[in-house]
C-alpha cells in the first residue's frame, strides 16, 4: 500500500498554545480515509496543513513519497482539492465559481465552459449554473464547492465536515458520490466528521484525533474515550 501523506512529529501551535502534536500519520493513496474528532480537536488545522495552505514544523513531511520543499509547495498544491467546512463561494454566478480554479490556471474560456458543464452534469448542478452563488442553500453550496475543487482533477480531495449542515437528500447524494470514488479507487479522499458511525460506514480507514494527536480509532469513542 503506497502512502500519499507520511508525517513524523508534526507540530503546530497558535498564539503559543500547541494545537497539533502528531507523532506519526500515514494516509493511503487512492483510498477513502476519515478523520474523526470532536469540535476543536484540531481537524480543520490538520486539513489546512494537509492542503499545504498552512506551514507547520515536522521531522518528516512526504507528499506522494517526496519531501515537501517550500519551493514546490504551489506545484504540490495543484494536486490537492480542498473543500472547507462551510465553503465560501465568491459573489459571482455558480458557473464562474466552479470555473475559478481553471481561470487561475489560465485555461481558455471555451475549455473552462466544457469542463464546468461536464462536472455539473456529474453532480446534477446544471440547473444552478446561471444562479448567483450567494443565493444557494447550504447543501447546494457544498456541492458547488465540491464541483469547484473536482473540476481541477486533483489526485487528493480533502473535505472538512462535508456532511454538516446538509439536508437528508444532499447528504445521501454525497455519501453515494464517496462510495463511487471508493469503487473507482483513482483518487485519495480524506474527509472529517465528528460522527464515528458514519466514518466507519463510509471510509476504508478511520483515524481518530484527540487533543492534537492521532490514534488508530477503530474502536475508540471520541465523545467519552480518553477525555
Amino acid at each position, binding site marked *: 500500500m503506497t502512502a500519499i501523506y507520511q508525517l513524523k512529529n508534526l507540530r503546530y501551535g497558535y498564539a503559543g498554545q500547541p494545537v497539533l502534536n502528531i507523532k506519526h500519520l500515514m494516509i493511503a493513496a487512492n483510498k477513502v480515509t476519515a478523520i474523526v474528532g470532536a469540535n476543536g480537536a484540531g481537524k480543520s488545522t490538520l486539513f*489546512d496543513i494537509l*492542503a499545504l*495552505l498552512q506551514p507547520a514544523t515536522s521531522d518528516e513531511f512526504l507528499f506522494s513519497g517526496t519531501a515537501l520543499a517550500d519551493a514546490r509547495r*504551489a506545484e504540490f*498544491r*495543484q494536486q*490537492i*482539492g*480542498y473543500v*472547507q467546512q*462551510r*465553503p*465560501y463561494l*465568491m*459573489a*459571482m454566478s455558480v458557473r464562474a465559481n466552479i470555473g*475559478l*480554479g481553471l481561470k*487561475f*490556471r489560465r485555461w481558455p474560456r471555451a475549455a473552462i465552459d466544457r469542463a464546468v458543464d461536464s462536472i455539473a452534469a456529474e453532480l446534477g448542478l446544471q440547473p444552478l449554473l446561471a444562479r448567483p452563488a450567494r443565493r444557494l442553500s447550504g447543501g447546494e453550496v457544498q456541492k458547488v464547492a465540491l464541483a*469547484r*475543487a473536482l473540476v*481541477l482533477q486533483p489526485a487528493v480531495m480533502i473535505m472538512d465536515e462535508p456532511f454538516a449542515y446538509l439536508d437528508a437528500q444532499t447528504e445521501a447524494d454525497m455519501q453515494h458520490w464517496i462510495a463511487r470514488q471508493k469503487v473507482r479507487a483513482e483518487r485519495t479522499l480524506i474527509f472529517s466528521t465528528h460522527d464515528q458511525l458514519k466514518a466507519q460506514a463510509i471510509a476504508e480507514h478511520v483515524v481518530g484525533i484527540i487533543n492534537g494527536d492521532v490514534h488508530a480509532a477503530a474502536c475508540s469513542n471520541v465523545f467519552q474515550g480518553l477525555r
Partner: protein
Amino acid sequence: MTYFTEAFYAAWVLIFSFDGEVYAVVFTSLYVSITAVIIAALPGIPLGLLVVLKDFPGKQVLQHGLNTLMALPTVVVGLLLYGLLARQGVLGELGLLYTRTAIIIGETLLILPIIWNLSIAAARGADPRLLNTIRALGASLPQQMAVYLGEVRYGLLAALAVGFGRAVGEVGVAMMLGGNIAGFTRTMTTAIALETSKGEFEFALALGVLLLATAFLVNVIVQRLQSVSP
C-alpha cells in the same frame, strides 16, 4: 441666527449664480482631489492587499508607520514639499511650485498612507475563508489580489472616499504649494481661508456649504457606480 441664514442664502446664490470664478474654484478643487485620489490609489490599493496577502518581515513596523502617517498634518506635507519644489530646492528646476501639479503631488502624499492603510483594513475585513479558498484553487499572488479587489470592493471604495474627503477638505497643502492664485490654484478651501481673513465670514461659510455639497454629490455618484457594478 441672521449669520447662518445669510450664509445659507449666500451659498444658494453661489451655487445658482453660475459665477465663473466660483465654478473655477470648484473645478480646481475637484480636479486636484480626484487626480490625487487616482494617483494615490494606483499604488495604495495593491500595496494594501499585498500587506494582507503576503508575509514579510517588518509588517508590524510598517503598520505602525502607516497609522502614524494618517495623522500627518497637511501643513507639514506642504512645508516638506516646499523645500523640494521651491526655486532653490532639489526639484526647483521643474518650476512646479504654485501650480496645480504641486497641489496634486502634496495631496497624493497626504492620502497615500490613508488609502494604503484603509485598503489593508478592507482586505482584513474579507471573509476569513476567502484566502484559503482561492489559494487552494491555485491562485497566484496577482490573481489573489485581483479576487480581493472584487470581493472587498466596498471597503476599497470607502478607502477612496475617505482619501477624497481628506484631499478636498485640506487647506495646508493647497495654500503652501498652490499659493491660492485666483483663477488657477485657488481651491474651495483656500478660498474659504481667504474670505475668512478678509472678514467675509458669511461668504466663507457659504463656500463651506458649497464644499460639502460638492463632496456629497461626488459620494452619491460613487454610490451609484457601486450599485451599478455587479
